[in-house]
Structure formats: C-alpha cells, structure tokens
C-alpha cells in the first residue's frame, strides 16, 4: 500500500480519482447502452471508458492501472471487439443480406429495442476502449534509448 503511494500524483489527486473513476466508468457504460435512444453511442462511450483508465494511470502511475487492465487483456478485447462487429455483419447473411438488422426491432424507446444496434454499440465500445487505452499506454511507456542508459 505504501509503495503504491510513492508513484503518481499527490494524495489529493489520488483520493479524488478514487471517487470519480468509478463514476466515469459507469457513465461510459450508460452512454453505450443508451446509444440508440439518446445521444452518445459505442464510440463516445468507448472513449470515455478508455479515459477512465487513463485517469487512473495519470493519478496512480502505470502499475496500478496495468494491474486493473493488463496488456494481454487489451489486445484480446481489441481483436474480440473487431471480430464481434464483423460477425454481426456476417450474421446478417442469415436473412440474406450483409449487415441486415436481423433481430426483431422491439418496442421503440425501450432499452431492449432496435435489433442489432445495441449489440453493435457494445462491440464497438469494447474495441475503441481497449484500442485507445493501448495506444495511450504504449506512447506513455515509450522510453527513449538514451533515457534507458541514464
């Protein structure tokens, strides 16, 4: 515990981060799930999820953030999101068309409506969240050659 406190920013930032990071994550999930009834959607929600982890990493340092969301999980979620979205597209062939919205549309204005749209939102958000956090981590952890020697 004490070792964790050595890295990252000051105590005030850490306490506030602990309070807000969960809320940001939750807000991201809310935005994803309600993408088809209110503004937002998979992409914006995915970026918000990535930002919540970025927030954690800036405040606590890389070790804590990478323990919560390890690199292997990142690349897995990224590829899975992409494959999931492509499978939704290919599953449309069951109805005869690429990208056919093949699930019943349901009752409008409800959370469970609009066929494949919420599913696509989830797939995209997985991809975007994991992918953008991966880009951030890779760029932040990039140590220059001459920095290593010092």
């Amino acid at each position: 515990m004490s070792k964790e406190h050595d890295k990252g920013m000051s105590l005030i930032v850490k306490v506030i981060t602990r309070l807000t990071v969960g809320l940001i994550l939750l807000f991201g999930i809310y935005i994803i799930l309600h993408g088809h009834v209110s503004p937002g959607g998979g992409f914006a929600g995915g970026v918000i999820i990535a930002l919540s982890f970025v927030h954690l990493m800036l405040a606590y340092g890389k070790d804590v953030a990478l323990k919560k969301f390890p690199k292997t999980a990142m690349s897995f979620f990224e590829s899975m999101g992409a494959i999931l979205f492509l499978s939704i597209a290919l599953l449309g062939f069951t109805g005869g068309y690429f990208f056919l919205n093949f699930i019943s549309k349901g009752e409008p204005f409800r959370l469970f409506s609009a066929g494949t749209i919420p599913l696509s939102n989830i797939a995209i958000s997985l991809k975007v969240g994991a992918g953008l956090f991966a880009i951030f981590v890779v760029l932040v952890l990039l140590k220059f050659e001459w920095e290593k020697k010092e």
Partner: protein
Amino acid sequence: MIIYLLCLILFCCGLYCILRKRNIIKIILGIIIAEYAVNLFFILVAYRMEGRSPILSSDVEIVNMVDPLPQALVLTAIVIGLATTALMVALAMRIYEKYKTFDITKIKELRG
C-alpha cells in the same frame, strides 16, 4: 454564406500551418485544425433554421429536425482523424528518439 467562409478560413489556417511550419508537432497541430474545419463545415451544411436535434421523443412529435446523415458521417470522420493523429504522434516520438529534435530542417537524410 459568411459562415461558410469563416469555416474555410479556419481550414486555410491549418493548411498554412502544415505548409509553412518547420516543426513536426506544429504540422500535426495544423492537420488537427484542418480536420476540425472540415468536420464543422459538414455539420454546417446540414443545419436547418430553427432546427431540432434528430432524436425522437415518445411524448411529443418533433418537427423540423436537422439533417442526420452528415452527423453520422462526421462521427466517422472524427474517428479517422483520431487514428491518423495517433499514428503521427507515434511517428513523431520515434523520430525524436532518433534525431533528438522536432525540427524538420535538421531531419534531412533523404534528398527530396
């Protein structure tokens, strides 16, 4: 009319930055500004006077919505811009590692 022109002036600011500045990060900033301008232009041509946002409500019927298609396209364009920017920043940081500078007049191993 004037508003379209202002938007294209913003685009030209970005273009000037790309063409004339000699610093890698400034060039990236120029591309970001130009992208913003194009995205804004796309939304501007979709606007309708006294329009409403294209989200239906279950209680009241909303008339006079703005054009939803450009909004969907701009969402795509923003993501593409982000992807290009991330790639360019990665390239810029690797170049900095190799040359220890962002100045492109000093980074000239290749002849034009």
